[in-house]
């Protein structure tokens, strides 16, 4: 996706990492290099991130992002079991 360079270089403290990151990082740090599910939470104070993403992301990616933003995080135990199952499947291949 193309993004405005002005927004790319905005910085804030990532509440998940505890480190300073740029908006550009948030655009690619989610699943499958899509935006992080917390991107709305973290940036809405600085600019209209929802409109921005709606304008720049493919419709299906934006829709999935909005859905994911509203449901994360999963129950931790469930997530761990899912990841372990995936790893076991990978190992068999």
């Amino acid at each position, binding site marked *: 996706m193309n993004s405005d360079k002005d927004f790319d270089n905005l910085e804030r403290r990532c509440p998940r990492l505890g480190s300073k990151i740029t908006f550009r990082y948030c655009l690619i740090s989610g699943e499958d290099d899509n935006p992080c599910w917390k991107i709305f939470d973290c940036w809405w104070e600085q600019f209209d991130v929802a409109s921005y993403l709606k304008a720049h992301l493919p419709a299906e990616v934006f829709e999935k992002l909005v859905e994911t933003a509203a*449901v994360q995080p999963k129950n931790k135990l*469930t997530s761990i079991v899912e990841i372990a199952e995936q790893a076991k499947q990978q190992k068999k291949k």
Partner: protein
Amino acid sequence: MELRKYILREDEIPRQWYNILADINMNPPLGPDGNPVSPDQLSPVFPMNLIEQEVSTERWIDIPDEVLNVLNIWRPAPLVRALSLEKALDTPARIYFKNESVSPPGSHKPNTAVPQAYYNKAFGIKRMTTETGAGQWGSALSFACAQYGVECKIYMVRVSFDQKPYRKFMMAAWGGNCIPSPSNETKAGRAALEKDPDTPGSLGMAISEAIEEAVADETGQTRYSLGSVLNHVLLHQSIIGLEAKKQMELAGDYPDVIIGCAGGGSNFAGLAFPFVYDKIHGKDIAIYPVEPAGCPTLTKAPFVYDHGDTARYTPLLAMHSLGHAFVPPAFHSGGLRYHGMAPTVSQLVDEGLLEPKAVKQSQVFEAGILLARTEGIIPAPETTHALATVIDEAKKAKEEGKEKVILFNWSGHGLLDLTAYDSYLSGQIKDIVLSMDEVAECEKIYADFPKPQHLKHK
């Protein structure tokens, strides 16, 4: 001289952890098939002795001597009377805090890292893996593994690895092998690097790598470790509140109000759950988990069964939720910082045993600065949420002319997180509050879902 610290002798350290699952009825996490997640599903990831603790409903669980012999490097942690803060606020309230910043890594995290390393060692595990963001948990686990001669491998998100050298130096000093994620050491990592050799990584990738390494070890001698949320983590943290109860006796006081920040749940639960036990048995005590005003999962959202995803593959979990399909209004999406909370904390809120409070971002850093300038310790950013509520309560006590006793958890110092203070001091932090109208809109989502039982404690 006024007495500031209340210190237990090492041989007065609690010998058992308190397990809140003995005293509350929980709605279990339901799997995709509608059944609870089983211990067998967890056994490739955690050692069975920790899985047994995860599902135990025994009220008191013995702390092994081998664990106490490491915890006593810094425990019992001091209970401190915040005399300077009281004077600054000119309040009749007597304010106490448990100082968890005195541990070697500087936070409450090693309270669970140490027993986790011990139980893994006792189960025959040679190597533990984990992920870390800024490095707080990774350094706690490295410290703990060093005490028991267990190897420790930490996948640190590359962007933090490159940016935050001090935590990885701490891990290395304790013998932890901290590597940037994605790495070449797992299939998941190699696939990510093949796609983009310069990828900055993500927390999701680091977790995947840490779990994959544990599951893929054919010798069965590697397990994964997590530092928050899970029941056994909250169990280990109960030592904070159990010590505090003994120390409050030394001070000749008993708290009217308990306050802790509720982000991941573990430091709040550590202090509060032993006092929840007293409350269940008749003590008149107010217990406040504190969260940012911008993430009102506890303060405003309803207690429901909710899916983890819109496809509804993941379990229906009883939690305070803003709804799986909630679409945030563009300018108020900041209200969705957390979707769910530690299930035990949610349950206790639902029963009315905990009363959540929300504080604004600017308020918390203002409190952090005041505490730094009065009590001297620069608090971790997470700790500042509790501090803001402490100040509110102390001011209220002054208005009401009451000698209220307030106890809170100082969960860690902020010496390796000073950029957060820089953001506040340079005016970059603003306030967010989700309105009740917007939360009411979310509630429509659950109309078709089964309603969890509003269980009461045993």
